[in-house]
């Protein structure tokens, strides 16, 4: 073996070994660890907090308590397997509703259930449950009495008084036929989906829903989103194509690779029935979406409700109301269809709120892991910019977000954000990854000036404990002046989060009753001015992830014990104005009254 270059006894200076060593070092250095001039590390910029410098974040002003079990919410959500999901239908979970079905002034809870791929033993199929609020921090299962027992692949729920009889009705979506429960006003319901022509097809997969008076005729219409065209008979097995793998694991297929769906719009015929106007309204013309959460709001402040739909892995859509019974889809042009990079995201839940108090309603949308939620700031006239990064709500990218909402748990007049999480692949628990099946909730505190801070850890176990959240709803279920949260955890028991105030902030809760407008007052907008605080909100059906929140509007008032002005813009066009309204009350206002109809002014429950 030649070790050196030699000839006639003369040793070559540039030996083979040294030459090769040079190559090796060059390869190593050039591809990885290049050296350059030293420079000191820059000091880290700390995120803004409400606390004084050096003292850490300010106290939350409340404590959060998980009380579902003690409150008697005996419910197990079933959605296919818990260790593996064979098909996509097992992954989407279901929604939940806070609504006052018996008009006693206390929020009741309706939890949706799904099913299993294998038929369960007779009589053991999981079903939906209605829990009546006992007004003492507990609830009683009244499903059977209310005639709401039903099994199937339940998905979404929304509330609205479709027949204007003064009692809120219930619409429930399914992978299968949807149900419309007419509230009989006596604590019972009657299912009238088919006779009202809103049952849809037993083959379709409906997800989100919302009652909306899109033509402002005083009668609630209904929008229903659909996810994918899915059938067990031709469903592909995990790992069977590129759309059925995740992190190298064979997982359930979809939604990419499956046939997309369209949204439906039903117009109220004012006689207890509806007509499918999807085509003529333009709503059904939009193809290529995997529709999930839907939310209705007047984004351009023209007095007409617009419709936004979070779409999974496809562009989300924004239907702007043309004020003539039709809509135009402008999600892309208005900046709410794609990510900041122009890519489709896995939209799940949606929420609306004017988080910066500029008089324009903004949007929050939850997405998949490796994405962050979108915070679409309404720059005016429904032109949006995703400011998640600027606002600081892009910090968590390991979670799959679902139900979400803007709410004001500390009553400081600034809308905070809470969303629940949980991955779609239980199979992730078999590998070491940066994301897991069970995930915590996330809470962002609004710091003002368009900035938020993540206070999840500060909030404690009620938020940091791991779960499989899907639908979640917001409402003051114990009438204590503080908004709580109910979460429908897929494959588990629900969570009921009570926020106990530790400050003296004031608040007001407003229940509206339409007269010319629909009785639920859905679509009515309230402007609440108290001192320097100016807030708006609308009565809203649906929202979050396939869920229904309290139809009462709640405003935190900070240290303002009197509201200078309450201005109510009803869908009919009527405007009510009230001045010098006392804080800390549950105010009932009927359309057209020039002052508060003081049907209930109960103080906060201690």
């Amino acid at each position, binding site marked *: *073996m*030649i070790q050196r*270059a*030699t*000839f006639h006894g*003369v040793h*070559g200076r*540039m030996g*083979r*070994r040294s030459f*090769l*060593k040079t*190559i*090796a*070092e*060059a*390869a*190593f250095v050039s*591809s*990885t*660890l*290049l*050296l*350059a*001039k030293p*420079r*000191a590390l820059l000091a880290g*910029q700390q995120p803004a907090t409400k606390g004084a410098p050096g003292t850490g974040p300010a106290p939350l002003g409340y404590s959060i308590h998980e009380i579902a079990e003690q409150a008697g919410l005996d419910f197990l959500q079933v959605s296919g397997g818990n260790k593996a999901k064979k098909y996509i239908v097992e992954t989407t979970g279901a929604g939940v509703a806070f609504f006052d079905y018996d008009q006693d002034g206390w929020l009741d809870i309706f939890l949706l259930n799904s099913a299993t791929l294998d038929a369960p033993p007779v009589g053991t199929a999981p079903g939906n449950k209605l829990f009546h609020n006992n007004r003492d921090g507990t609830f009683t299962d009244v499903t059977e009495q209310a005639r709401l027992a039903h099994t199937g692949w339940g998905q979404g729920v929304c509330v609205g008084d479709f027949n204007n009889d003064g009692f809120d009705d219930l619409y429930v979506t399914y992978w299968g036929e949807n149900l419309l429960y007419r509230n009989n006003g006596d604590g019972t319901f009657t299912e009238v989906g088919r006779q009202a022509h809103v049952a849809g097809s037993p083959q379709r997969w409906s997800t989100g829903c919302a009652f909306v008076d899109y033509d402002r005729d005083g009668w609630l219409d209904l929008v229903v989103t659909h996810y994918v065209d899915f059938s067990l008979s031709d469903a592909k097995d995990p790992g069977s*194509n*590129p*759309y059925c*793998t995740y*992190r*190298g694991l064979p997982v359930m297929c979809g939604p*990419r690779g499956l046939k997309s769906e369209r949204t439906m719009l039903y117009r109220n015929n004012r006689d207890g029935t509806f007509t499918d106007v999807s085509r003529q309204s333009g709503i059904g013309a939009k193809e290529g979406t995997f529709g999930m959460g839907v939310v209705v709001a007047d984004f351009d402040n023209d007095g007409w409700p617009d419709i936004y739909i979070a779409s999974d892995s496809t*562009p989300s859509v924004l239907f702007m109301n043309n004020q003539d019974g039709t809509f135009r889809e402008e999600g*892309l*042009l208005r*900046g709410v269809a794609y*990510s*900041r*990079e*122009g*890519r*489709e*995201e896995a939209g799940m839940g949606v929420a609306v709120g004017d988080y910066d108090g500029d008089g324009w309603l903004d949007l929050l949308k939850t*997405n*998949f892991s*490796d*994405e*962050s939620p979108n915070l679409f700031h309404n720059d005016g006239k429904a*032109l949006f*910019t995703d400011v*998640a*990064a600027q606002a600081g709500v*892009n*910090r968590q*990218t390991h979670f799959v977000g679902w139900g979400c909402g803007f709410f004001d748990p500390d009553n400081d007049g600034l809308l905070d954000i809470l969303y629940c999480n949980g991955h779609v692949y239980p199979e992730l628990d078999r590998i070491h990854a*940066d994301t897991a099946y069970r995930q915590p909730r996330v809470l962002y505190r609004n710091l003002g000036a368009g900035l938020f801070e*993540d206070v999840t850890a500060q909030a404690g176990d009620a938020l940091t404990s791991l779960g499989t959240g899907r639908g979640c709803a917001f409402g003051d279920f114990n009438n204590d002046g503080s908004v709580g949260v109910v979460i429908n955890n897929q494959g588990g028991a629900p969570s009921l989060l009570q926020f106990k105030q530790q400050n003296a902030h004031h608040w007001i809760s407003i229940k509206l009753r339409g007269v010319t407008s629909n009785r639920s007052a859905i679509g009515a907008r309230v402007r609440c001015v108290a001192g320097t605080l100016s807030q708006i909100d609308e009565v809203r059906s649906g929202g979050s992830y396939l869920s229904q929140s309290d139809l009462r509007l709640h405003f935190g008032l900070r240290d303002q014990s009197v509201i200078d002005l309450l201005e109510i813009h009803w869908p009919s066009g009527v405007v009510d104005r009230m001045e010098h309204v006392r804080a800390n009350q549950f105010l009932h206002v009927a359309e057209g009254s020039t002052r508060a109809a003081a049907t209930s002014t109960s103080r906060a429950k201690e």
Partner: protein
Amino acid sequence: MQLLRAGEVHQALQQFDVVLKSNPHSAYALIGRGVCENQLQQYAAAALDFKAALHLDPASVSAHYNYALTLIRLHQEDAAIAQLRMVLNAQPEALQPLYNLAVLLEAKGAYAEAAERLRVAHRVAPEDPGIAVHFLADLLHLDTHAEVASLIAELSAESTPSALQRDAGAALLGAGRAAEANPLLMAAYNREPNFETALLLARSLLAADQAQAALTLLSNSTPAGAGNEEVAQFHTLIGIAMAATHDPRGATAQLQTALSLDPRLAIAQNVLGFCQTQQGQYVQAAEAYQEASELEPRRAVYARDAALASSRASDTAQAIRFAQRVTTLTPEDAAAHALLGKLYASANQPRQALPELQRAVAIDPDLDAAVYQLARVYQATGDHAQAVAWSEKLAALKQKHAAEFAQQKKNSADPVHAAALLGGGALPADDAGGP
């Protein structure tokens, strides 16, 4: 000549002097004296003797070759190459001239001819692993794959010295063929475990996305006696391995240790930025990414990461600065222009945004990120017709790209790749996920 072969160089030199006094035209004596002078490092004198010898006997292979060696000592590489070519014209399979010519050609970047010369040398001496390693390195430089597999097989033999196996592994690693480098480096390390080979093997394992194996290897290695730079590299590699095995917190500590030893390690800064991003510390992450780019301002991927991280940390001004750096470094990169255009747009500078976005789509009409931004910028500037037109283009592109996405998804088992971290392309866009 017998004295020279016996190592009696001075005596040999005297004898050649005697011969040349009596016969100044003896080419043989001139060559012999030149060889002696070479050994005594009297290169100028040797060169004169070899030139004189060649004047007398232009066909002397010995004179040409020894003259070539002298020219190498005198750093006259071009002249040496010419002499060696003449040697090989006469003796095409002469092993040493073949090798030395290859070395000189490689130094000048003439890999094709170098590989040809070594191919002959390898045929003449197939049992010589030194030549095989060298030949392998040249083929990798040329990105020629035909003979690489057989050379690797030869070098995998137990008879190959571990140092040569390590060199071959390093060459493969440098050529981006970590999977093939790993067995050779592993063999070298098992036979002769040392810190230097451990670092090389760890890096190769990381490049092959075997982060856990790299972590195990490094955990069992001790950098005792190594200098600060080597120890810093050691901690950097551990940090990368930890980051790739989803331990960003542990990785952060390792990388900070590395940077305390060697603050100039740009890769450590870059991966530190990645780990801080993973933990939601976007402001700190942006600073680390920015620092990496300042340390290596000509590395486009670091500048891109710094721009993205700055944007994520809401520092649009810095994001624009680094995005500008990317477009300067890679002016034909459509994505770079699209990124800069997007940042201008988010800074409410549509006049600056539009030309960048238009440049992006001019380079790559299929770049939907740029098309999307164009629609948004036109909408924001009130040009509704253009906005609609670009929206329609985007819709068509999305349709087209749907199938491509499926393939991408299949290939991306995990968004955190050790190999990507090594290359500094670690920061994904905000929306890398999705089922």
